[in-house]
């Protein structure tokens, strides 16, 4: 039922767009869905779309992994060491408050206009989201569970692998899920500012040629990429947290 309604909404939306755009003389700004589709099809047939999408995915995923790994590691470290966390808190807040887009020119100076600059830009955004979530997750770990394990003679490594990381991983994934669009922002922003490849470049070059159909086509490709990344996260979640599925499957006790 719900998919039918959703399909109907899409059909009505696209149909209205298709009719209104030429009727109001707005084809230039709002290319008709048909034109967008044709543009998208041409890009796909030439293989250009996959080439650019591949570059952007590479940047986003690499930035995601880089920022995610560092964010998780440092989040766990600071979550376990209150003193260190207190010492570093003002510095981290200061860097966090900085809009990462403002770092782009500096990153270009440091790393050039190649892929690595986009990776670092995406990574710097992802890092903070994952770090903050992991940090919070580690601080939320049940003290009772830790006490019970310490009574079993657990050392810090045991606590980390058996309680802290499994317990914080829910939060880590919340951070990762939140990061998907931001990793794409980092990659695409980098491409718009300085690049000759990637979906961001595709957008800016199409827009530069007043090709709205091409611009919309690239936007659709980005949307699709974000969907794929989200699904990948969901898949990883299911594999890494099988107990969550078990919890969802049970009957709700009152």
């Amino acid at each position, binding site marked *: 039922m719900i998919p039918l309604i959703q399909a109907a909404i899409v059909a009505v939306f696209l149909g209205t767009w298709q009719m209104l755009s030429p009727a109001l003389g707005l084809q230039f700004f709002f290319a008709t869905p048909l034109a967008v589709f044709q543009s998208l099809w041409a890009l796909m047939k030439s293989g250009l779309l996959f080439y650019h999408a591949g570059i952007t995915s590479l940047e986003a995923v690499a930035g995601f992994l880089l920022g995610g790994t560092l964010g998780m590691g440092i989040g766990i470290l600071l979550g376990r060491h209150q003193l260190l966390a207190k010492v570093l808190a003002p510095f981290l807040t200061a860097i966090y408050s900085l809009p990462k887009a403002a770092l782009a020119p500096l990153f270009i100076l440091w790393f050039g206009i190649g892929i690595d600059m986009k990776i670092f830009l995406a990574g710097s955004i992802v890092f903070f989201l994952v770090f903050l979530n992991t940090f919070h997750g580690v601080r939320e770990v*049940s003290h*009772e*569970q830790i*006490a*019970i*394990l*310490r*009574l*079993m*003679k*657990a050392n810090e490594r*045991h606590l980390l692998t*058996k*309680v802290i990381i*499994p*317990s914080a*991983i829910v939060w880590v994934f919340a951070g990762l899920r939140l990061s998907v669009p931001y990793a794409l922002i980092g990659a695409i922003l980098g491409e718009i500012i300085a690049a000759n490849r990637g979906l961001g470049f595709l957008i800016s070059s199409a827009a530069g040629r007043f090709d709205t159909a091409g611009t919309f086509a690239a936007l659709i490709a980005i949307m699709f990429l974000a969907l794929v990344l989200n699904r990948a996260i969901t898949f990883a979640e299911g594999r890494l*947290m*099988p*107990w969550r599925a*078990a*919890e969802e*499957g*049970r009957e709700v006790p009152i």
Partner: protein
Amino acid sequence: MPGPTAPPSRKSSEALPLIEFRNVGKTFARGALEAVRDVNLSVAPGEFLTLVGPSGCGKSTLLNMTAGLFLPTTGEVRYAGAVVADINVRVGYMTQVDHLLPWRTLAGNIAVPLEIAGRPKREIAAEVERLMTLVGLTGFGASYPSQLSGGMRKRAALARLFAYDPETLLMDEPFAALDAQMRLVLQVELKRLCRLLGKTVLFVTHDVDEAVALGDRCIVFTSRPGRVRQAITVDLPGDRDLRVLRYDPAYLAQCGALWRLLTPPVEPAVAPQGRRE
């Protein structure tokens, strides 16, 4: 099975105490809540002590302090002669809430202490299997705690406690959520293991019959702030058969006496005699 099979000492005052509470008091919330006051108690090695008293009288607080989870506000808790100042790894603690790890299966949970002890994988699997049979959880090894009933989780927590085989067992109403048959099975098993291995046990319960059936000594607490109201030596043999105990007149008489002792404070506005502040 190695280990001394020294029978539990009935004359606790004569043996060197394993656990000692000396003028122990504990307040929470900056003194707003006084859990226990002036508790003096000696527990001999191998002794099975049951703690009874009204809800909220600080029995769990005493267990927490024995485990070193927090320190007394006044007085001191000694374990094997030394003041308990940090986590006491010579005790095992089965808390009221099972505190199983939700991300581990039942078998995985029971395996935790064995993994910490660094036992080889195959040995762990066999031991977990044995313990699950012991507590009647065969076939549930692959289930997650969230999929099981409270009673099953309690039994898993009990299996986990047995898995790491601590010198002293702290048990906070471990059998409260079980059906009568399973409870009896586990009581028998607990009593047998404790006698065999010479375990010292602090066992909190609300069940008067259980307190008499299991204990060598039964400590009755007043309502909050909890103080020792009376220590009753249970006059039953150490190797009593729990399955036929309910027909034993001596047992029934002791249960009756304990019932009478515990009944008055339940009525409102009646304080325990001679204990008014």
